[in-house]
Each structure stands twice: as C-alpha cells, then as structure tokens.
C-alpha cells in the first residue's frame, strides 16, 4: 500500500517517536516542573557533543532505538526497508533531537505521491473506511456514558452512607462547595498552562508542524499507522541472542511510540485502537481460515512458507491448533467476537464480508505479519482470570483477577489491571472501576480481601470513635498532618488510638508487597497475552503496583511490559525506594496522585513519613513522574473508592502528554 520511500519515511518517523518517547520518560512533554521538551532535546544534543559521553547509538545499549533492544530492526525488516539504511535511521533517531527531523520525514511521506497507483489509493480508502467503522463501534454512546455515570453516583452514595462519619471534617463539605468556584478558576489556569506548553512543545518539535501534517492525507496517515502496527506485531525478529528483548508480541514501548506518532499526526487515539482491533481480529480470522485449510489437507504453499519463515509464533507451531495460539480466547468467544464485528463492518464496507478481515489485511499487504498477532494474545483472558496462584505461593491467601468491562475477547490490544487497596467488602474491589470509559481489556485484581477489610474497617472504626470525632470537630486532624510533616510532637491521645490499627496495617503492608511480587510474576509469564498493560491502584493497591514495578525493574528484560501506571494515595516512601528504577519499566505515563490533606494515610504510615516522605500526600520529585494534586477531589482516604474513576477521567490516560483536566470536575 505504501511505496518503498514512504515505508522508509514511516520507519524513520517511528524510530524518532520511539526515541522521543524514551526521552519523555524522564522529561515529559509540556511539563513545566521538569525540563520541557526543548530542554530535553537540547540536553541530548549536549550529550551528543560532549566529548566525555558516548554519542553513537552503538555505544549506548540503554537506548530503545539501539540494535540490542531488538525493537526497531524487526519493524524495519517488516517494512522492507533496505538493511543498509537501518544504521542511518537508528543514528538519526538517537543522535539528534527529533524535532529537527520529524518535519522533514513527514514531508517525505507526503511528497511521495506521484507514483502511487490507483489501486493503492483505493486500498487506503478502504482501510480508512473500515477504521472509521470500527471506531464508531468502539466509541461509547452518550447514553452509555450516562448510565455508567449513574451507576458510579449510586456507588458513591452507597459509600457515603456507609461511612456516615467519613474521614472528613463536617464543615469541609461546605467549604468545599464554596471554594469550588474559585478553585475551578484557578485550576483552569493551571490546565491551560499545561496545555499551552504542550501545544508549544509540539510546535517546537519542528518549525511548522501543522503545514507538514496537513500535507498528509488522512488516509495516508491511517495507512502508515496501520503498517507500523502490523510491523510491531509481526514476529519478524530472528532469535537474536544479542537482543535483550526476548518477548514477542506487542511491546509497551511500541505502543507509546505509536501514541506519540498519532499525536504528531493529529489522529485520535481511538482510531489507533480501531486499527489495533482490526489487525488483531483479522489475524485471528486468517489463522482460523488457514487452520481449516491445513486440516483439509492441501499443503497450501503460502502457509508452509509462513511456517518456514518463522513468522508464526512458537505457540502456533507447538500447539498445532488454533486454540493453542489464541490461548484463553476460546473458540466460541472468537466466533462471538467476529459476529459482533462483522455486521457493523460488513454492511458498511464492501471489502469486509466473507473472509473480509483477510481482505483488509491483504489490502495492506501485511497478512504474514498479522498472523503473528494472534500468538501475541498468549494465554490472555483465561490466563489472567485463571491464575489463582496464591495457594502455590503460600504467602498470599488470595490473589485473583476478575474481568470487568465489555471489552473481553474483542481483539483489544491494551490491557488494564486495576487494584483496590482500601476496601470494606468484596465489591469494593470491582465497583470503583466499573464505570470507567476506555477501550482496554480490563481486569481488577482481588487480593487479600480479609486483611484489607480488616485494616480498612479498623481505620474506619477508629475514625468513628468518640475521641477521633471530637478531634475532628475541633479541626485537629488538619493540624495532625502538618505536625507530622513538620516533625512536631504528637497528641498523646492519637498515639494510643492508633495502636490497634498498627498491627493490622503492618500485615496489610506486608501482604501488599507480596501481592506486588506475584503481580510481577504474572506479567513476566505473559499471562496478559504479551500485550501492553496499564496498572492502576489506590491506597495499598498502589503499593501492590509499585512493588510489582520494583520487581520488574530488577531485570532488563522487563522493560516492555508496562505501558502506563497510576498510583493514587499510595502508601510508599519517597526516599530509599528507587523510584527512578521503576520509572524505567514504565514505557509511558507514570502518575502519582496525592492529596495533601489525606491525614489518615499520614497516620497509618507515620513511621516512615517523617524521615522518608510519603507518595500519597506529597509529590515525588523524580524526573518523569507526573505528580497530580487531587486534594480538591479527595475528602479523605476512603474517597478514593468513589473518586478514582473521576480522577482517571481527568488524567485522560489515552493522551500521550501529561494532562490533568480540571474541567471534568463535577461538584
């Protein structure tokens, strides 16, 4: 569908995006508190030019674009870019700030139109139509959204009723409301700053991005993204022992790079998600078709060729059946998935029909590559939900994934795992996450509910005890936190009261560390199906996520697993916890949401608070971590139960650059 020169330019843009995404790990786009993109670029230029540091790609194996990461070359290979050009592309991406080159490559992509055959243009158009149709079916209808909202409100109401004396001061509600308008104004300013600097940094990424992007037709952009995604999913890499990347499948770094690229292209992320779904579904369709042919006997030469080419994942070869390839995606589920898609697509686009998915893939010239995608699902679905590993480990009594949302067995290539950490009953593991709007395949992790409920209830009981109530009325709690932070003396009454929380809290902390380790093991085993994972957790759940990252950070091979992370009200020390290392295993955004008046967390975690800081109530000053102050949203630690969803909405996780959009804020 694309000419060789276009594929070259696409490969180049992808490498630039990949490298840029890595730079943004430590200096996020449009984030004033750290180096902005300009600064980041400049520093890399310095790095390049200074005589003391390494400067050619070949010297720095930490780079994603470096050959040893095994990320770029398979993509180049799939795109059929001449191998002699690889070195130049890698060097271009790593050597100089990408903003200089993005425009030039975009222009190259756009200019090359003369020798595009009519057929290719038609294919581009057909592809665009199917992507549009797909994204229509994936988009949430307003009614849908409202019903989810309603459900969430119900949950909030239920929670509030349950904690008739929630851990907030009585007057805070009033204050909250009266302050609301002022705050909103103030906050709007903040948001606009972030957005402005984003716009700025984007436009800085080259002199006049809009012109160049405008030169590209929409179809062309989608075609490029489609080709690149197919390339990312194809199992082209021969087993390169030098490569540190041992996993096949959809690397989280690929997804982040594609996300940046779609930002450069000014293409909505949902289009990219549609492309993901189309590629995944067509891959499964093709596999199924080929499988039946195979069984029927005639050794289809093409099939044999694919096998010889090592294109089919190992799973396909050893398993020998479709089931083995698709893992947990049971056959009926696949069929259901297709029939769900087929009507939408089939009626709208002529190419989608009998064997239509195959047609789309063929049109894009990426049949071979797509086939490997199915393997990348691994043991998804059943893999996660079926992994009750707890008993085997022994240290953890309960550790179970539960599927939520409607996106299962739909060929979604993004996985989200949500972890609650402050729960009063089992449904608190699920309900905080239910109303979330996104297109990932979503799971919640239910873990150690007994201990969590025990500690949460103890805290709640303590809050409702008379002494605490008295103190709250006097507004003492607000000063507690500040005295904690300022190392002032503690009111003796508090110390006595907290005693009986402490033992339960200690157990829960300990269990969360162990659960984190388990989670890391699950991800390392690829039970999520070699797909990029987004991890979200609040309270002790955030600690599970963090612990998981720490374990993953211990090995170099784990860098491509996790795409995004959101920690809310996290009981994690800031010092001595090696946040920098965990930053490296998160390919994309890494958010720490904190509330400066979450004094309950402060008290529970007071042992470490003084000397080491606490992520749940303070910003973490580690480059690349997005600190978001949610004090305005959170009234007390238990608010995370019903406010998490709103915070996630405000974070707009599908956006490449840091966002905390206050305009979604509802009173």
């Amino acid at each position: 569908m694309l000419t060789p020169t276009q594929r070259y330019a696409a490969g180049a843009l992808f490498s630039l995006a990949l490298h840029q995404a890595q730079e943004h790990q430590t200096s996020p786009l449009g984030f004033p508190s750290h180096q902005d993109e300009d600064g980041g670029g400049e520093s890399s230029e310095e790095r390049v030019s200074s005589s003391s540091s390494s400067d050619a790609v070949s010297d720095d194996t930490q780079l994603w674009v470096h050959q040893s990461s095994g990320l770029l070359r398979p993509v180049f290979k799939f795109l059929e870019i001449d191998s002699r050009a690889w070195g130049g592309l890698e060097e271009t991406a790593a050597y100089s700030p990408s903003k200089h080159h993005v425009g030039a490559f975009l222009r190259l992509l756009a200019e090359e139109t003369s020798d595009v055959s009519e057929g290719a243009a038609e294919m581009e158009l057909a592809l665009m139509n199917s992507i549009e149709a797909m994204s229509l079916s994936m988009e949430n209808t307003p009614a849908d959204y409202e019903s989810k909202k309603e459900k969430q409100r119900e949950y909030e109401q239920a929670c509030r009723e349950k904690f008739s004396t929630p851990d907030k001061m009585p007057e805070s509600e009033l204050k909250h409301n009266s302050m609301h308008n002022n705050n909103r104004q103030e906050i709007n300013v903040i948001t606009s700053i972030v957005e402005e600097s984003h716009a700025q940094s984007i436009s800085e990424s080259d002199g006049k991005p809009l012109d160049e992007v405008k030169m590209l037709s929409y179809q062309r952009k989608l075609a490029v993204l489609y080709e690149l995604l197919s390339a990312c999913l194809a199992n082209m890499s021969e087993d390169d022992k030098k490569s540190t990347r041992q996993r096949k499948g959809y690397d989280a770094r690929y997804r982040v790079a594609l996300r940046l690229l779609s930002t450069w292209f000014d293409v909505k992320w949902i289009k990219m998600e549609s492309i993901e779904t189309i590629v995944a579904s067509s891959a499964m369709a093709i596999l199924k078709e080929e499988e039946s042919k195979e069984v029927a006997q005639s050794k289809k030469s093409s099939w044999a060729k694919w096998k010889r080419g090592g294109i089919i994942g190992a799973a396909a070869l050893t398993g020998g059946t479709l089931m083995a390839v698709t893992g947990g995606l049971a056959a009926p589920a696949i069929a259901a998935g297709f029939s769900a898609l087929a009507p939408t697509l089939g009626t709208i686009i002529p190419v989608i029909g009998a064997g239509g998915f195959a047609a789309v893939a063929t049109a894009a010239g990426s049949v071979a590559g797509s086939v490997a995608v199915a393997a990348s699902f691994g043991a998804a679905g059943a893999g996660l939900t079926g992994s009750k590993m707890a008993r085997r480990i022994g240290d953890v009594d309960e550790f179970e994934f539960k599927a939520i949302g409607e996106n299962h067995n739909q060929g979604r290539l993004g996985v989200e795992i949500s972890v609650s950490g402050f729960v009063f009953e089992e449904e608190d593991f699920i309900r905080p996450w239910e109303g979330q709007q996104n297109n990932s395949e979503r799971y919640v992790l239910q873990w150690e509910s007994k201990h969590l409920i025990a500690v949460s209830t103890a805290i709640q009981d303590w809050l409702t005890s008379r002494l605490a109530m008295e103190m709250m009325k006097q507004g003492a709690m607000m000063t507690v936190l500040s005295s904690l932070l300022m190392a002032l003396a503690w009111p003796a009454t508090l110390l006595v009261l907290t005693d009986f929380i402490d033992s339960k809290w200690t157990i829960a902390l300990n269990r969360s560390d162990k659960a984190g380790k388990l989670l890391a093991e699950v991800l390392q085993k690829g039970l999520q199906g070699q797909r990029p994972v987004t991890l979200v957790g609040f309270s002790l759940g955030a600690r599970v996520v963090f612990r998981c990252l720490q374990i993953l950070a211990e090995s170099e091979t784990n860098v491509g697993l996790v795409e995004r992370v959101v920690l809310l009200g996290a009981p994690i020390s800031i010092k001595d916890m090696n946040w920098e290392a965990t930053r490296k295993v998160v390919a994309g955004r890494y958010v720490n949401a904190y509330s400066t008046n979450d004094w309950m967390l402060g008290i529970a975690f007071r042992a470490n608070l003084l000397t080491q800081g606490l992520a749940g109530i303070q910003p973490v000053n580690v480059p690349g971590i997005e600190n978001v102050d949610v004090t305005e949203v959170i009234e007390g630690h238990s608010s995370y139960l019903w406010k998490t969803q709103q915070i996630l909405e405000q974070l707009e996780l599908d956006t490449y650059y840091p966002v905390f959009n206050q305009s979604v804020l509802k009173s």
Partner: protein
Amino acid sequence: MESSSGAVPEFDYLFKLLMIGDSGVGKSTLLLSFTSDTFEDLSPTIGVDFKVKHVTVGGKKLKLAIWDTAGQERFRTLTSSYYRGAQGIIMVYDVTRRETFTNLSDIWGKEIDLYSTNQDCIKMLVGNKVDKESERVVSKKEGIDFAREYGCLFIECSAKTRVNVEQCFEELVLKILETPSLLAEGSAGVKKNIFRQKPPESDASTSGCC
C-alpha cells in the same frame, strides 16, 4: 538519559561531517573507501547513511561522525535537516559528469546557505572519479576556480584507487581544528536556539532544477 560513562574520553573532539552532491557521484563509495579501505559499486543510498571513524590529526584524537546523504531528488527534502550542527560539509561531484558539477552551485550551494546553522562551517569541494581521466569533462582549473569563488577547500580524488581519499578528510578536519568556534562546538554543548531561524520551504530550491 544521563549517560554515566565517567571513563576516560576516547576522543578529544567530535565532529559532524556531512556529504552532499548529486546521485551517483560516489559519496557513499568515497566514505566507504575512507572508513574501511574498500571499494565497491554501491546501489543508491536510501535516505541517509552514517559512519563513524576515529582518526588522529595534529595530535588530537578525533571522532568523526560522517553523514552520507542520498543524492536522489526524492530524498532532497530529507537532507535539509541534516545540515544542522555540521562542522564540515563535503560537496562531491563527478569529474566525468558536468551537470554534477554545475548542480553544486545551482542546487547544493543554495541548500547549504539555507539550512546550514553554522556560519563558520568548513566546506570542501571534492571532484571524484579522477581514475577515469580519459572521460574527464570538468577540469581541475574549474574546480579550483569554483572553490575560490565559494570560499571552500578543494581536492580531487578517486574512491576507486584511493588517491587523495585520506587527504580529503584530513584537510577538512585540519581546517576545522584551526577554527576556534567549531572547536568549541566539537568539545562542548551546542549553542541554543540556533534552529529557531528555520528557513522557508525547500520547494523553492528544488524547483530550480526541473
């Protein structure tokens, strides 16, 4: 990304060199001849190629990062972004094809003026393929005149016989070493905001040739 190589630097200066010129004049072969002492007939370069060569010139250990650009028209738009920050530019023509010589002033010279961010950047004119003496159509005199007019260095060489190949790069590097501003760039951080004066569309320059 803090590259934490606190080790002894393996070189004193790092220079970025750029090779430009029409398709088929022998940029890639010249570079190959310089970096690995071999001669091959190469197919046209795609986009850009990149080679590193460590040399010692004038007692200084140098690391040369040499960017070899595609001469083909369709990649012209790409080349523009590689001029940035180059301390030396090598303009190559084929002594047996006059148009490759005239294009240097008609097209490539303008490109340099447009895109080079380095006012002091050293330019070098190289007439390649002198081994084909019988087919020569551009005389040495013409080359010298052009170089004088344009204020650049000049050499004639052959990538095939390796005549003057080493000298070509050496002379260029020596000249860079003599230029304090370039030297400073090669050893320390690059000046800021240079790229803000982004030149206008390249279309103007490419339209001149067809």
